[in-house]
């Protein structure tokens, strides 16, 4: 039998399949957000965000967890960003295509594929124990910064690559050195891309649990962090504890904590998206 679909119909079917697949992507996002907001919004208050937990964490606020996460994450990005950008500049602007360069690039790709719990164990072994940082903000930040390094390097290289090669040639042809060209032409024009990448990285590592589990996070700390060598509470780990380890936990506090974490991550992504649109608009070439 010679059965052939009429082209108009097949076009319609293809369109429907593609469209439904796309819808399928947003449905889980909507359900998750809706569920968390519905169950958690009643817990959110100024007090929830700015006070210590009370009553075995069954009441009160989550301030130490928020501050703990912020300090680990900001510390991590301050370590990983300069190192990552320097590495990206070296790889993009200086490195010759030789064996060493290829090994480095391979290492970066593989580093990105390591499961995060392995980073956690690595951090425990190296930073917490070998280097004697103890379970602390700095140990957690170092662990997260190593985990995020390949991402930062990759996005920074993308940003450097987006600066046209012709700009570099124009600068060199005027007798300006390679480093000055990087410093005054390449970096300023790549900076927006690098910064949006950094913000997205902050969002990503804010939600990471495994790498800080053994290196920074504590079950409960009765005071706010005072130094880099303090153990801290952290939002993702706190969320895990209150949802599984504490009996009779009020549901709205669990979901309220999840909502705060979600807001933190989403608002970072939003800032990155807005910044990207803005920089694309004012871009001069």
């Amino acid at each position: 039998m010679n059965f052939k679909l009429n082209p108009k119909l097949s076009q319609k079917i293809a369109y429907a399949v593609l469209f439904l697949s796309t819808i399928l992507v947003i449905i889980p996002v909507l359900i998750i957000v809706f569920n968390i907001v519905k169950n958690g919004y009643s817990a959110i208050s100024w007090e929830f965000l700015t006070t210590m937990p009370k009553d075995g964490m069954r009441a009160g606020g989550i301030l130490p967890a928020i501050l703990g996460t912020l300090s680990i994450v900001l510390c991590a990005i301050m370590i990983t960003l300069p190192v990552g950008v320097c590495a990206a500049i070296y790889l993009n602007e200086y490195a010759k295509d030789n064996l060493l360069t290829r090994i480095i690039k391979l290492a970066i790709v593989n580093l990105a594929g390591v499961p995060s719990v392995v980073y956690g164990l690595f951090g425990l072994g190296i930073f917490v124990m070998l280097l004697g940082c103890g379970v602390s903000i700095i140990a957690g930040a170092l662990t997260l910064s190593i985990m995020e390094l390949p991402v930062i390097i990759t996005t920074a290289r993308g940003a450097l690559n987006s600066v046209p090669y012709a700009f570099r040639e124009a600068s060199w042809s005027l007798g300006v050195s390679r480093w000055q060209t990087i410093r005054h032409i390449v970096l300023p024009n790549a900076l927006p891309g690098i910064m949006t990448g950094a913000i997205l990285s902050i969002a990503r590592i804010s939600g990471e649990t495994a790498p800080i589990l053994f290196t920074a996070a504590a079950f409960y700390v009765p005071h706010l962090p005072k130094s880099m060598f303090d153990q801290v509470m952290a939002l993702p780990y706190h969320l895990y504890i209150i949802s599984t380890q504490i009996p009779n936990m009020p549901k709205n506090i669990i979901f309220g904590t999840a909502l705060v974490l979600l807001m933190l991550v989403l608002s970072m992504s939003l800032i990155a998206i807005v910044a990207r649109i803005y920089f694309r608009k004012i871009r001069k070439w």
Partner: protein
Amino acid sequence: MVDKIKVNNLCCFYGGKEVISSLNINVVKNEILSIIGPSNSGKTSFLRTLNRMNDMNVNFSRKGNIFLDDENIFDMNPENLRKRVGMLFAMPIPLPMSIYDNISYAPKRLGIASNRNMDEVVEKSLRDSSLWDEVKDRLNSSAIKLSGGQQQRLCIARILAIEPEVILFDEPCSGLDPISTAKVEEAMLKLKEKYTIVLVTNNVKQASRVGTRTAFFLMGELVEIDNTAKLFVSPRDKRTGDYITGRFG
């Protein structure tokens, strides 16, 4: 007649493929040497070797020597060389900054002019490239917004600001209309008094208009070089004659 540049047995290769073969040529001080020739005859490769822009290309290699005022350019620091031998590309490449900053960029980096007399440097460079009158009221606006011809003259001004000795032009008018072309040519003729110029052009008429001498390149070889008038009226080589009368290439 003093030779500004002397090329001795230069051979250039991209990944082993020879694109310039044992080239011997000289550039006289304060002349405009036009180089004509069909596509792929090695004109751009020659210019990019003269100021060592090809150093950045890992596939590039060369044999032979080039002397600038009797100094071997391959023994020089490439950045110092490029300060003395400026280059204008076929496509104008304004840097993504203001007109003023485009011109002050290199002098600042190279420490040529102090901030105090930067205004003078900018004005003089723009006057010498015949652009001043068109942009003097908007020096702080973006250079990207200029027309193609204006951008190309801005790029000339940018080179003049570092006061090189030699300027290399690679088909500077290929994307320009006749009026813009005339303006760039006018700027070039003015520059001849102070600078030594090598002009690569696809436009045979342009070579005959501005060239002091003209060289004809073919397949990486120098076929013929002579005073422009002589080369155009009575070329020695038949291939030169065929090319300038448009019978091939």
